[in-house]
């Protein structure tokens, strides 16, 4: 009796870390991100699968939840999805409750909640290998009999039992089971607990002794009051260091390649506007951003490794005390850490935070965790402070200082803001599951890294490419007759914008060209490099190298009209400070508005951060000038 319209939907529901997303990937053959930390899935993911009979079904991967009581926004999403209250997401016709077989006593609670909703349910008893290793003896048949729903043992990460599961969810769906424990009760809670206890007694035999697992031994180090911090700092430092040193060689190769490409094009074409567009505009503009691909890849690789291993939960546990001083809790750690890669998933990850006020504050300060889009700017400017040499430990130290400045300022603002928002209506306390450590799931990690790398390249090939062409056009037209390249630039649209903006940015130590570059980088931070490249390359009559090193040489030699050096160390520091604090990412503002449910909050964040950046930059430059530093 299946009508020829949209395929039916089934939902995967279960506790965090039960393996829903792993099962989703196995069923739908698409690879979504898997993280071994409560709350990586924060929105509903949709995919499609085919049953053995060739019937198409839509699969919804829901965020993990401990019950349907919905304390945090991601749990609310799960509950609303099950009851069909989310726009654009179909109401599921069947719920697959993914349950960790090694922790059945804890996971059955949610299953009962779902059965009470009146949905047909199939229980996927996942991680049977872990249960076996722990010496648990399970009786799926008894469980199925007692509850009146099919129970299928599976091992999602090894693809075992999936065929049986698909058989269980083919049409016609099993009928919705009765929930006799919930009848005639004002509060079904005690009856539910009694039912769980009864089910466990019948179907689960657990060896009495508490077992020391390898995870416990590792936690002896990672959660130790002293060793835990040492290992945390060591891991963070190792990640930081690897990103900035391993990436050096691939970056050089890309640069050499781009330089060669520029020279080749230059040799092929006659002098003129088209050549200038290709070499000064496109190769210089897009190349200046593409060269950072190795770092982006390494950053996401490390984050993926840390998350999938289970270490992130320990890090959140360690950081809880420190974050409390900033008015937050350990749950804010992962969103803020992820924001160092990109604030958008970081802001979305705040859905796991129970306290609405803590969540708002975390969202507010997330952009001050220097994101990967700022890397091109930092890498262009920092060597200017160090005589143009890259890759030294001094550079790493300065970069560390930059990140630390952003983080510390964020914590101060967080504390103040949290204080002003007042206490929560309902007190929220720290509660976190520490999943077993797991080896890296390489196929997922590599796919995730590839996705992010591709997104980066795609952005370079579309947004940055478009802006490069636009910026080149603005710097080249309208033209004057005669005069050197500098005069031509001054006459062009870009030059005129620069003249207008110069009085505004001069107190910060910048000239019109830098000011224009700052303005354009409000579209995307990397565009700062693009704009500077375009302006300074278009300006130079010879030496059309498209490399960053060459650009930096030009910046180092740049002067004000009166001959003073433009990029003194003080100016560079002032510029870096501006980029640490300014919020220059429209997509982030849009996501903030959506997650905070308030355009005012997003606008306030933008204005505050922009104003703060201006004032901070101003103070740095003027005070430095006062003290004779530059």
């Amino acid at each position, binding site marked *: 009796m299946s009508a020829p319209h949209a395929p039916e939907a089934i939902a995967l529901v279960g506790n965090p870390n039960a393996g829903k997303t792993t099962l989703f990937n196995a069923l739908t053959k698409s690879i979504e991100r898997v993280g071994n930390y409560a709350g990586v899935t924060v929105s509903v993911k949709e995919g499609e699968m085919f049953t053995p009979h060739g019937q198409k079904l839509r699969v919804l991967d829901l965020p993990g939840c*401990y*019950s349907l*009581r919905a*304390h945090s926004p991601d749990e609310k999403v799960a509950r609303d999805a099950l009851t069909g209250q989310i726009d654009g997401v179909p109401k599921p016709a069947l719920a697959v409750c993914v349950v*960790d077989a*090694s*922790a*059945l*006593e*804890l996971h059955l*609670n*949610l299953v009962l909640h779902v059965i009470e909703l009146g949905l047909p349910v199939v229980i996927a008893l996942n991680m049977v290998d872990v249960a076996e290793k*722990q010496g*648990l003896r399970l009786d799926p048949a008894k469980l199925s009999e007692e509850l009146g729903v099919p129970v299928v043992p599976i091992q999602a990460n090894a693809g075992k039992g999936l065929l049986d599961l698909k058989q269980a969810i083919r049409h016609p769906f099993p009928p919705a089971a009765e929930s006799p424990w919930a009848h005639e009760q004002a509060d079904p*809670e005690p009856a539910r*607990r009694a039912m*769980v*206890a009864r089910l466990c007694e019948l179907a689960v035999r*657990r060896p009495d002794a*508490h*077992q020391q697992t390898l*995870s*416990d031994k590792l*936690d002896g180090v990672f*959660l130790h*009051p002293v060793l835990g911090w040492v290992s945390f700092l060591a891991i963070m430092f190792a990640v930081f260091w690897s990103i900035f040193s391993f990436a050096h060689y691939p970056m050089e190769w890309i640069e050499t390649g781009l330089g060669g490409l520029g020279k080749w094009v230059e040799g092929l074409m006659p002098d003129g506007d088209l050549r200038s567009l290709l070499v000064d505009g496109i190769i210089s503009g897009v190349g200046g951003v593409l060269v950072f691909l190795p770092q982006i890849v390494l950053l996401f690789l490390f984050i993926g490794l840390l998350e999938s291993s289970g270490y992130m939960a320990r890090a959140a*546990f360690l950081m*809880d*005390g420190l974050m409390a001083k900033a008015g937050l809790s*350990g749950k804010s750690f992962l969103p803020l850490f992820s924001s160092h890669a990109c604030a958008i998933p970081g802001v979305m990850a705040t859905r796991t935070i129970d306290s609405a006020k803590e969540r708002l504050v975390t969202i507010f300060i997330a952009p001050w965790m220097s994101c990967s889009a700022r890397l091109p700017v930092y890498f262009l400017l920092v060597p200017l402070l160090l005589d143009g040499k890259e890759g030294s430990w001094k550079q790493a130290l300065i970069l560390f200082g930059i990140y630390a400045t952003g983080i510390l300022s964020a914590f101060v603002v967080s504390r103040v803001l949290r204080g002003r928002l007042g206490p929560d209506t*309902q*007190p929220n*306390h*720290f*509660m*976190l*599951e*520490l*999943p077993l450590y797991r080896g890296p799931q390489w196929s997922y990690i590599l796919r995730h890294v590839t996705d992010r790398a591709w997104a980066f390249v795609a952005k370079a090939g579309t947004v940055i490419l478009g802006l490069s062409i636009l910026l080149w056009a603005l710097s080249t037209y309208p033209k004057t007759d005669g005069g050197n390249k500098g005069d031509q630039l001054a006459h062009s649209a870009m030059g005129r914008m620069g003249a207008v903006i110069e009085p505004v940015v001069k107190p910060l130590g910048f000239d019109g060209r830098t000011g224009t570059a700052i303005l354009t980088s409000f579209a995307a931070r990397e565009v700062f490099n693009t704009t500077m490249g375009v302006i300074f390359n278009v300006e130079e009559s010879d030496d059309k190298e498209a490399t960053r090193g060459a650009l930096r040489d030009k910046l180092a030699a740049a002067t004000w009209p009166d001959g003073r050096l433009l990029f003194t160390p003080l100016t560079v520091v002032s510029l870096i400070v501006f980029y640490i604090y300014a919020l220059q990412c429209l997509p982030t503002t849009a996501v903030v508005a959506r997650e905070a449910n308030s355009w005012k909050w997003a606008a306030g964040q933008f204005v505050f951060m922009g104003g703060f950046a201006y004032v901070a930059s101003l103070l740095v430059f003027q005070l430095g000038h006062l003290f004779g530093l530059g």
Partner: protein
Amino acid sequence: MPFALANDLALDSAMTLNQAGVGCDMRIKLLSGPGCDRLRDMGFCEQLQVRKLSNGRNLICSVCGTRLAISRELAEQVLVAPLA
């Protein structure tokens, strides 16, 4: 406060999870306080066995093989007694 049997002697020897020693196996007797719903959802139910693995600002406990970290305020709401 949930109804507690007046002649339940075992309850008199109960202590909060905070007071319990590290490494001893205990049984959860009662949950009382504003966070008990949330605690139950996470797995701290009456009659289940729990072992405290470490103290501190946040406690780490093992319930049915799963490691859970909860704050001291929440641990105060969990009454446990040593296994008979």
